[in-house]
């Protein structure tokens, strides 16, 4: 019967209990909601209700595109409502426990436990402890096995969901890949199940999701381990459940032009701009990059869609900045037309365009000039990732040092003063020399800038982090570099940069020490046994592991040792051990579309002692058969469409 559900918690707003606590916590406005373009639908008129969570602080979670897209897609449907929830800081967490205020949505402050589904989007594995806080505060049993029909179905999504085994105990299911169509399918199944009188109870719903919804439900797969600690077998334990669960891919992104009405917060957030995904997927084949691998094939939005989305998004939000997002935006087949067209349309309106993630070899001055025409000319960022040509071949980021220098020289000559260069430390086959070479590259960059401009105030920042091998990439078999080695190389690099007086002040050096990367490694390539570690860390007070002020390496090491005692495996086993071809990896039963043998061959090509082989970009050169397109029945969808943007009829407001 509509509106009636088994005894569970009331869905009434908890705001009257929350409000008195707000003056006692930091940044209370983040919990109040009421953002422009937030949607509050009638609770009783809906038959399927979603709570969507980004498991980090509001300032990080609100701008997240994934959640905003699903929020709109779901709220557009009749009879469906979606509200949002984020991690609360520990000051409010303590007060909520004391005053028995449950985890709430910011839209109408309803308890998360009253919803049918809780969808959590994980961009990073470091959000796992925050998941447990949210479940606990919501009154949802941490163990999926302990939940009954009154509790929401907890689903994980986002890139980390491509290996959800470490949180298998805590989630009911995981959705791999694009969420737009998947959440609608899931909604349909929930509605059907309710209308039929909830056959099979909670188990019946999960079975329907697993067999007909493309949802990975861990409880329907048994995992056994061998004497050496590796996985013996992963197999379904129910008929109808697929041996391997495939990811979801949305074709024709032009038909899904979300978000249309972006959320505009009152509180300060990390991105204050309207973002458009100009394409999904990536064709470059950088071997370390999980995002590029798992989001294939490339699907572009055409220039008309992008322009419409920008216009509507700015009208609906009033933001002064537009972000053109993708994994490698300068690779879009119409990027020059898009950048020039948008810059023309918004001339004189003080709207900045930004293009995060531009590859060195796709950068061009025209593009950069168009992007900065209307706004600030701040810094340019490039990600060479490796310090020598040799190591860059290993990771398949084919840019020679000379090309890099030429590109930054052009940038400086055209007025940029600040260049940021991203690198990684701990890549497979890396030597001390590869990392030290970064200093040489940085010095050449400064030199080139000084020569090109005749100025002495040229600056460049080197930013370097530890490499973590990721599932569904050619490097998924690699041994992660131990943190002692990483830290030693970083120290040496820092010393080398400072050593040269005439460049020392011009080169900024930012780095993270190697230890958090080991924890990321444990969580990225972990299996179900790692769940006990996460629980132990959480019980010990671990929260907000993505924030350096909160992350405690010692706590993770201690809890890992305790929780894994007697299992025969430990932190090192999960991180610094190289895997072999025959080993069953914890995510082998999750299908990203990539052919496993192709990945293995690419791994061998990378570490070939004779020198790594390069793989071309399949957008422009023939297919190199990574397996995604035949497996998924998809093709890359790119332009150009040949369309040019027309001027807009908008009010011009200019300076003075």
């Amino acid at each position, binding site marked *: 019967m509509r509106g009636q559900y088994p005894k569970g918690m009331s869905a009434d707003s908890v705001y009257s209990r929350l409000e008195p606590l707000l003056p006692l916590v930091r940044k209370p406005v983040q919990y109040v909601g009421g953002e422009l373009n937030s949607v509050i639908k009638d609770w009783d008129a809906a038959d399927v209700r979603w709570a969507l969570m980004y498991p980090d602080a509001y300032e990080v979670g609100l701008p997240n595109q994934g959640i905003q897209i699903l929020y709109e897609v779901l709220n557009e449907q009749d009879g469906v409502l979606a509200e949002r929830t984020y991690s609360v800081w520990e000051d409010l967490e303590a007060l909520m426990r004391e005053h028995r205020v449950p985890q709430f949505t910011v839209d109408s402050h309803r308890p998360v436990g009253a919803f049918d589904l809780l969808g959590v989007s994980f961009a990073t594995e470091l959000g796992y402890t925050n998941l447990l806080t949210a479940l606990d505060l919501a009154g949802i049993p941490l163990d999926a096995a302990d939940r009954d029909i009154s509790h929401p179905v907890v689903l994980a999504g986002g890139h980390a969901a491509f290996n959800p085994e470490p949180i298998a105990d805590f989630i009911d299911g995981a959705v791999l890949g694009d969420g737009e169509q998947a959440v609608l399918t899931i909604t349909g199944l929930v509605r059907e199940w309710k209308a039929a009188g909830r056959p099979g109870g909670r188990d019946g719903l999960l079975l329907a999701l697993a067999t007909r919804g493309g949802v990975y439900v861990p409880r329907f797969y048994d995992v056994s381990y061998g004497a050496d600690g590796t996985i013996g077998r992963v197999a379904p334990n129910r008929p109808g459940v697929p041996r391997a669960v495939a990811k979801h891919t949305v074709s024709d992104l032009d038909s899904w032009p979300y978000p249309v009405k972006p959320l505009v917060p*009152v509180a300060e957030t990390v991105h*204050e701009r309207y973002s458009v995904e100009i394409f999904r997927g990536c064709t470059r084949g950088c071997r370390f990059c999980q995002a590029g691998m798992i989001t294939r094939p490339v699907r572009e939005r055409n220039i008309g869609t992008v322009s419409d989305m920008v216009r509507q998004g700015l009208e609906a939000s009033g*933001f002064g900045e537009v972000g053109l997002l993708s994994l490698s935006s300068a690779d879009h087949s119409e990027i020059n037309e898009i950048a020039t067209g948008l810059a023309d349309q918004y001339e004189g309106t003080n709207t900045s365009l930004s293009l995060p993630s531009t590859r060195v070899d796709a950068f061009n001055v025209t593009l950069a000039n168009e992007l900065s025409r209307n706004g600030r000319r701040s810094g340019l960022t490039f990600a060479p990732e490796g310090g020598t040509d040799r190591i860059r071949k290993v990771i398949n980021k084919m840019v020679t040092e000379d090309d890099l220098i030429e590109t930054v020289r052009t940038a400086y000559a055209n007025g940029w003063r600040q260049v940021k260069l991203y690198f990684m430390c701990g890549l497979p086959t890396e030597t001390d020399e590869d990392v030290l070479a970064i200093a040489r590259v940085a010095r050449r960059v400064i030199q080139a800038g000084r020569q090109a401009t005749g100025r002495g105030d040229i600056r460049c920042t080197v930013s370097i982090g530890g490499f973590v091998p990721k599932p569904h990439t050619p490097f998924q078999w690699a041994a992660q570099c131990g943190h002692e080695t990483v830290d030693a190389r970083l120290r040496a690099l820092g010393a080398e940069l400072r050593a040269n007086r005439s460049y020392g002040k011009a080169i900024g050096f930012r780095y993270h020490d190697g230890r958090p990367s080991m924890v990321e490694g444990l969580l990225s390539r972990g299996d179900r046994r790692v769940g006990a570690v996460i629980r132990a860390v959480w019980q010990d007070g671990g929260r907000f592991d993505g924030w350096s002020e909160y992350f405690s390496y010692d706590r993770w090491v201690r809890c890992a040792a305790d929780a894994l005692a007697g299992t025969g495996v430990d932190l090192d086993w999960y991180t610094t051990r190289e895997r072999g071809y025959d080993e069953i990896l914890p995510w082998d039963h999750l299908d990203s579309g990539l052919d496993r043998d192709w990945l293995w061959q690419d791994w061998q090509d990378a570490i070939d002692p004779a020198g790594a082989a390069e793989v071309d970009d399949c957008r422009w050169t023939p297919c190199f058969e990574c397996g995604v397109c035949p497996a998924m029945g998809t093709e890359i969808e790119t332009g150009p469409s040949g369309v040019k943007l027309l001027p807009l009829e908008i009010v011009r407001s200019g300076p003075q």
Partner: protein
Amino acid sequence: MRFASHRDTARVVERAVRRAQLPIAYSAGFSPHLRISYVGGAPTGTASEAEYLELALTEPWDAAQVRSRLGAALPAGIDVVDVFDLADAPPPGPVGCEQDPGRAQAPGSGAPPAGRLGALRLEASRWEVVVPGVTPAAAASAVAEFLAATSVEVERLTSKGLRRMDARAAVVTLEAGPRGTDAAGAACATLRMVVRHTTPAVRPDDILTALRQLTGLVPSSPALVTRLAQGPLEADAHAGRTPADQDNEKTARLAAEAAPVAAPPVSANDQLPRGEQGPGTDQRAREPDGRLPECSRPSPTIETPRPRPAQPASPVH
């Protein structure tokens, strides 16, 4: 919006101005920003019915047009009370007993804000403070004790460090107001106060700290503070006009209280002197014991009592 900081509110306004497609002017320079200026934002945690800001436009627009466009674009929780062209701005009063530039400034009183908004002479604010868990009798007795004191020093930690200020000196009037209700709906006392704008600013929080220090008055949960009005302490309708401005600047007054009032609070508007159209000045501010303040001029701008808007049934954001 009660929990929004001044910077949060400023961002909300900026985006609304852009959505409304007002012909807003931008500053020159490397990083242009919208030319919207504020005078003394309300502290975080307070609601307000009387915030003032100034928009610089590049074309002359009718104030009513600005008002309707901006009002439509602003989100729930923040409303435009009125918009007027600063060229028509009410003139600054002739110097009242406290504002005569010929006299030495009283210690602790700040200079009136510079710029055109300064022409409005936002010299003091009237606040309402709901104090949960405090009876009207306890409030009245604490008020009497406070007013009898000659000075009450309090400390507050600011971005510039620990600052001491005399809470008593900044208070022009303080009285126990009508019965109020706290967030949970229980009856409690309210306080009404008129506080001079000083540097450093003395906030209602500081007055509450002073009351606590002096009389032991402590609310059972955080007080709810609302700014009801801002304006000159003394007013004369015929003071000098602001020079006409080439840019045709407007001033929009904002009400940041979420209460969905049927009509804009009439009194907030009326409290601003409008030359010949100034409101009647029958009421005069008095100390709780009936004394008139030393200065004998009437002060219509702050002390005119106004009808309270209906309290919203739903929680105030």
